[in-house]
């Protein structure tokens, strides 16, 4: 079992040769900075915030976050030999609406409010969620169903790349799920409305997931080094 895992690891690192822990750290950092800068822009330049103008702010955030994510993750596309960088970017762009639809359907199944009043908010929220969950995988895996299944259904993570996609995505979804819990409370705050606290939860979970993936990969690599010695 151990041998098998090790074999996989070496295989990924040799075949890809693209992704080292430092690169992972850097790409996560850029994604995080993109997220932070979008909020900074929203508050300081457009003077909108998530609580008062959820739809507009969410739109701004995903408009900035999506290009960042697509451009970075397309660098690490798995089928380097067959597809070009541009193709990976196109896959990411295609993945965005599909992921948004899946996220929106999930949210509605769990009780997101429906109606014209909430349409804009749900749309923008699901696009942002898609940027957290679906778009990176679309860029990296493309149409390889086996890879998708391995990461999202079986959560059998083999390479660094898998950690980089899987943990933040799961973190965002689980964070959003927990973020919905304060909604029924009778505190009468605006941030309890859909999808403000859910977004907060998702972003928090996403950040935790990124941190987790960095730690995990760092830990694995250091152990490997020790073993190697």
């Amino acid at each position: 079992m151990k041998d098998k895992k090790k074999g996989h690891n070496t295989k990924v690192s040799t075949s890809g040769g693209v992704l080292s822990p430092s690169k992972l750290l850097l790409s996560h950092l850029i994604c995080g900075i993109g997220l932070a800068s979008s909020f900074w822009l929203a508050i300081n330049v457009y003077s909108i915030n998530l609580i008062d103008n959820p739809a507009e702010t969410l739109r701004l955030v995903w408009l900035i976050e999506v290009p960042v994510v697509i451009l970075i993750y397309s660098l690490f596309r798995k089928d380097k030999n067959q597809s070009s960088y541009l193709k990976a970017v196109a896959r990411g762009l295609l993945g965005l609406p599909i992921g948004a639809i899946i996220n929106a359907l999930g949210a509605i199944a769990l009780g997101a409010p429906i109606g014209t009043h909430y349409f804009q908010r749900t749309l923008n929220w699901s696009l942002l969620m898609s940027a957290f969950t679906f778009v990176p995988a679309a860029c990296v895996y493309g149409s390889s169903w086996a890879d998708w299944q391995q990461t999202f259904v079986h959560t059998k993570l083999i390479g660094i790349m898998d950690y980089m996609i899987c943990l933040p995505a799961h973190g965002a979804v689980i964070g959003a799920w927990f973020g919905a819990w304060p909604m029924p409370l009778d505190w009468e705050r605006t941030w309890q409305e859909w999808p403000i606290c859910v977004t907060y939860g998702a972003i928090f979970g996403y950040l935790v997931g990124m941190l987790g993936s960095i730690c995990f990969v760092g830990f694995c690599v250091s152990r490997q080094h020790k073993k190697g010695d």
Partner: protein
Amino acid sequence: MSLTEWWRSKSWGDQRWVFMVFFSVLLLHCVAILLFTSGFLLTRTELPHFSHCSQVSQSPCGLPVSSPQSNHENVTCWTKPAVDRIVIIVLDALRIDFVAPSTFFEEKKPWMDKLQVLHKLASDPESAARIFKAIADPPTTSLQRLKGLTTGGLPTFIDIGNSFGAPAIVEDNLIHQLVANGKRIVMMGDDTWTQLFPNHFNKSYPYPSFNVKDLDTVDNGCISHLVPTLYDDDWDVLIAHFLGVDHAGHIFGVDSAQMIEKLEQYNEQLEKVVEVLQSQSGKGGLHENTLLLVMGDHGQTINGDHGGGTPEEVETSIFAMSLKKPPLPIPSEFDASSCKLDLLGRKVCVSSIQQLDFAATVSALLGIPFPYGSIGGVNPMLYGLVAGTWKNLEEGLSQQKVKEWMQNYAKVLCVNSWQVKRYIDVYTASSVIGFSIDDLKHVEEIYAKAVNTWSNSNSNSTSFHATSSFDSLKTQIDLYSNFLSSVAELARTKFTEFNLRTMGIGFGILFMSIFVHLLFIVKVDRVHKDVFAPNETSPVSFALIVSCVLVAARACSFLSNSYILEEGKMTSFLLGSLGVLSLRHSIMRKKMILEATTFILIISILRFTIELNLSKQGSNEVLDSKMYVADVAPLLPLIILAYMLYKSIASCKLVLKLVITGSIFSYILVALHWILESNLSNMTHPIYDVIKGNVIPRVIYIMGITQLLSLVVFRFFEEVERAKWGETTMMKGVAMLSTWSSTLMILSGRQGPWIALALVVGGWMISRLKGLEEDQKNAKIGVLACYSSSVTQWSLFGSFLFFCTGHW
């Protein structure tokens, strides 16, 4: 085969313990729920009796004194009328610290000392005005409080009476007595009053109280009518109910600018009211003998909540001012008030009164019969405040005068006590759960003592009025007050206090039943293991953990009021989460993806329809006459399903076949019922008059009971084939379901057929999805892990469907 023989028979022997386990769980649950609810659900029976003027002759008190000096007294009922008109201004959720000066409290808060006009009047020696701290009884919600104030009783959330659904008060009450005795009432403000008293007011200006966020509509309505009405002479009692403070509390809390704004507005309005009243209070004026009452119905916490029994919620206030001059001091023996200087150095006194006493005191002041169910006593301070209760106003204050007042008061208390005694006797005789015998005996003794003293002092001296001493009068009054307060105390323990002991025992038993369950599960698990999986099993799986976490989260959510209010959404959220997880699981196993998707779809569609229906109800859309097609449509697949079931049953099982046929017939009847309901209004044929009403539902109920009975009887004559236990259990389950289905469908209204269809499809999906766990690794999983997720799904789905039947 006789029943005992059958019981002992070997073929059933090892099933007996299974039966015993289920029976004991059922028994434990029943006992626990019964005990808990008997302690928790405070109930009170409403009596249909009413007080009448003439009944006072049955009392031992003699006829009311009509003094020779009073010139306008021709008719006296139970007591001598002391005021002609009453203006009642109700300020909803009026805390005592809104009214009393801030020096009465530890710390001055921003919302205190805002109703300056009341301080001024209460401190003015020229006016007969006083601030009372009124203690309300829980539940401190407006409807229950208004009911309590007018009936003089202690309303509970569940009053067993004639009014099903409609909030109108059917008990005897102050308003009814006012109308019955020819008083004319004007009402303005909160429309709760018109709901409680639909036909009692001569004139009413109700405003909707529903929208909590609206601070001004009700108040502005009141303000626009209040002062002009004061100049009219076509009323005897005016009720103005302001809601702004309550709503400001709910939305912004007590410590908010909006609250202070509201209080300042009230101060201004009260100033105007007092000005008008005082300008008309001269001899022969409109308000020569008027009583002004400014009162709250309950208090509120700092956050603006109310309903419970904390001091903040129950302490409200009554400000009373009699306009008849001159004001007289109450005999110091009965004056239990505390006086302090306010911030401006004026001496303000605050007395105390029970809200329970309000109805009796106001009745006594107006001279009308006390409401039949009133258990309050006439409050001496509020009663004595009104100059009309005194005689010989022109003379100065003397010992003789005080004595006369006390005689009058003693007489009022005598009538009061007689009426309360009559009520508790009749209540005990006619209600299901009356007062306990010991308590009644105790109260009886006190009453007998008081009445004895009364008749002794009346018979001993030929001229009672002249000779009875000051001390004996005081003893008499004390005896009656003692009786009234002990009755009030008794009633409070009965109607307002939860019986914590029975609640605790019930809860404990309920807890015990969980252990019985666990014991049973462990035992079955062992049996299961022996039969199916002899090798080691892993007791914990991902699904088990998720189920436990979700069930625990749901259980914890019941600790919070907000989650209970949103329980429907909560269950749909948890159910949706489980659905998404099982979809993931099914993708992992690469099978039953369709089932998992259907399950999620059902949940979403149900939620959509609920929200759609809610928004439709909100907009009061007129129902289309063709709507019944949508209501009836789901019955078709159900009938087809039942027919398929019928076909699949082996021909030897005649009873089962009959039961299923009955179900099909019932379904057709349900469809017929809804079609008729929608078209009935435009059909005039006489046959529809027969069908109209409850004929079809009754037929369906009878059929359901017959089906159930035949199933039970059939059960006794059935040979148990052990080999096919799985099949027989399934068969019984389906038969039971089809028996219940039609009855439940008609009970849950128009959406019934839809819910039934959703239940069938959803249930099928859940049982299919169970297969995901079952054959995984050749059943290496224990019972607990195998069934946990489907059982959780079932329970959540069940409560979700309950909320879909119009309980969202």
